């Protein structure tokens, strides 16, 4: 979506002197742009009212000082941004990135394997399996997260199962650890990865893998050289999604990490609601949003380039 828009604008700007390689996709977007503008008004209003304006406000807030008794003192300063890079807070950013990264890696491995298994089943069975894989997603995020507390707490299900198998020692401490947070994040965002990976896997012509086998490739080589590269866009889309949603998450670390555990989302929450330092909270949020936007843009750009390449290739042929 992102990529399409950029491609369209690129095409429109160069309208007077079009490049030879300008592909059909761009032209279609350009013609769409010339439709009556009022058709786009509701979407535009939504985007401006609920995205651009709030983000602008947050960004603006970040450049003011904190009032002495909380509140905001409207004097310009860059101090808030300097504070973001203070080792204490930068450390929280890094830890958030590490946790989100680990969760992403695990979610991609499990999600890809699940999508691969579903895509290898009979065609008629696939929608059903997909439905069940995504089913937890339809229940409330909080409930899903609380379920992990039931599982992981000291006398929870996991401990009980261990007991049932004859374990008598101290109950393992699993809840309120980094591992619990990662498990919660992976569990919550896994459906995204499954859906994102399933799309290219199910579209893959099975004869490509057979051709590789026929030419002497082992099953492993065939996966590495043919299947993986051709489904990489799905993996990338799923990964960026999980990472972006995880790095800014504050519910899962609050519930499964316990109070003593902070990710960037919790820090922002605290600045606004506990420490009453709105400008610093806004600066943290602005940096976080910038990181997310950058990742989405890079992924969108890469996906767009991939589709542009094939479209151009078709035109040249």
């Amino acid at each position, binding site marked *: 979506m992102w990529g399409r828009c950029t491609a369209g604008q690129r095409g429109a700007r160069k309208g007077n002197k079009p490049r030879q390689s300008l592909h059909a996709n761009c032209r279609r977007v350009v013609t769409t742009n010339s439709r009556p503008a009022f058709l786009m008004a509701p979407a535009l209003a939504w985007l401006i009212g609920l995205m651009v304006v709030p983000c602008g406000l947050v960004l603006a807030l970040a450049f003011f000082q904190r009032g002495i008794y909380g509140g905001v003192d409207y004097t310009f300063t860059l101090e808030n941004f300097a504070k973001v890079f203070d080792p204490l807070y930068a450390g929280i950013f890094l830890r958030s990135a590490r946790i989100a990264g680990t969760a992403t890696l695990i979610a991609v491995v499990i999600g890809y394997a699940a999508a691969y298994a579903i895509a290898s089943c009979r065609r008629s069975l696939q929608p059903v399996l997909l439905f069940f894989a995504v089913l937890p997603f339809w229940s409330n995020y909080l409930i899903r997260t609380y379920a992990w507390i039931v599982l992981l707490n000291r006398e929870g299900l996991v401990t009980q199962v261990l007991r049932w198998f004859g374990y008598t020692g101290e109950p393992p401490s699993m809840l309120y650890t980094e591992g619990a947070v990662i498990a919660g994040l992976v569990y919550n965002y896994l459906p995204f990865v499954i859906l994102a990976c399933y799309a290219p896997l199910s579209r893959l*012509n099975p*004869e*490509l893998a*057979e*051709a*590789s*086998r*026929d*030419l*002497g*490739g*082992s099953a492993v*080589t065939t996966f590495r*050289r*043919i299947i993986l*590269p*051709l489904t990489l866009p799905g993996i990338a889309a799923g990964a960026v999604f999980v990472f972006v949603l995880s790095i800014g998450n504050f519910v899962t670390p609050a519930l499964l990490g316990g109070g003593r555990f902070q990710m960037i989302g919790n820090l922002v929450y605290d600045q606004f609601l506990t420490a009453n330092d709105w400008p610093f909270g806004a600066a943290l949020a602005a940096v976080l949003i910038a990181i997310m936007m950058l990742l989405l843009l890079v992924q969108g750009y890469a996906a767009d380039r991939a589709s542009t390449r*094939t479209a151009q*290739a*078709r035109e*040249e*042929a």
Partner: protein
Amino acid sequence: MSRDVLEIEGVSKKFGPLTAVDDVSLSIRENEFFALLGPSGCGKTTLLRMLAGFETPTRGRILLDGADVSRTPPNRRPVNLMFQSYALFPHMSVRANISYGLEMEGRPGSEIRSRVDEMLVTTQLGGLADRKPDQLSGGQKQRVALARALIKRPRVLLLDEPLGALDKKLRGDMQIELKRLQHEVGITFIVVTHDQEEALVMADRMAVLKDGRLLQCDTPHTVYEHPADAFVAGFIGVMNFAEGSVSGQGVKARDGSLITGSLPDEIANDAAAIAAVRPERIVLFPADDIANRTSGRVVALAYHGLDLQLHVKTPLADKPFLIRVTADTADRRPLAVGDTVDLGWSAADTRIFRH
């Protein structure tokens, strides 16, 4: 004749209740251009996939150079398959596609490069090495798929409808091209096709399949001139049929006339039979010594440049007989729709099948 490179012994393949290939036995000779011919859905692809190793036979054995390979995985068989869809790797250039098979063999880079260059020349893909499959026309894709399989120097190259996706004119050229290439590389080719003309043009020998069963396996000439049964007779080229029953030296047609010809072995008198004759074997206004004769009314005329095709309604069958008259003959005796003509053919040109 040269020895057999591939032996198919009583091979069957079932998919649940459906028998896709039914007890097929064939021997393919070294350096042969062999065609597997049959209507769509008769099990050609399934048979080819068993030879390539993508399906295992439910019954029977496949021997390659005398060794049983029925259960050998595809990457361990010195056999390559050119897919009906070509199945070119879309993320790789033409060169990378062709190199792939040699890389899998662990050949050194220099050898791969020189062999790929050589193959690009052989298949006339010289200027296209850096293109992606998306940037190729149908004919070029077909040649890349061929090059990718050929470079492995397989004992047998399997081609599934290799010309199926090409337009008619290009097909004609490629039929000759495939034969030239096969001769040049000296590899056994098994080509699957549903186009009988293609099989006749290209093959040294051909097998005709129907509903998974082998009906006939022989040279195109023999299959055309001496079809094993009425189905093969009608499937290969054009054939005129007249139903009747066996009577003495031939078939008594429904109008009571006798169509003479050699009978199948051990066929009983009065048994139901079909007499058949090729359009080009029928003559108009036959001389007195011609054994089989009838007359009919011209119901349609089709001019084909090289020849004139007459559709003549006879008392022998419901379907009008098709007769081919050379342009020369047609000029000497002009004919029009509605004319009554005498026609006939000799006993040696009659084929008689069980019904």
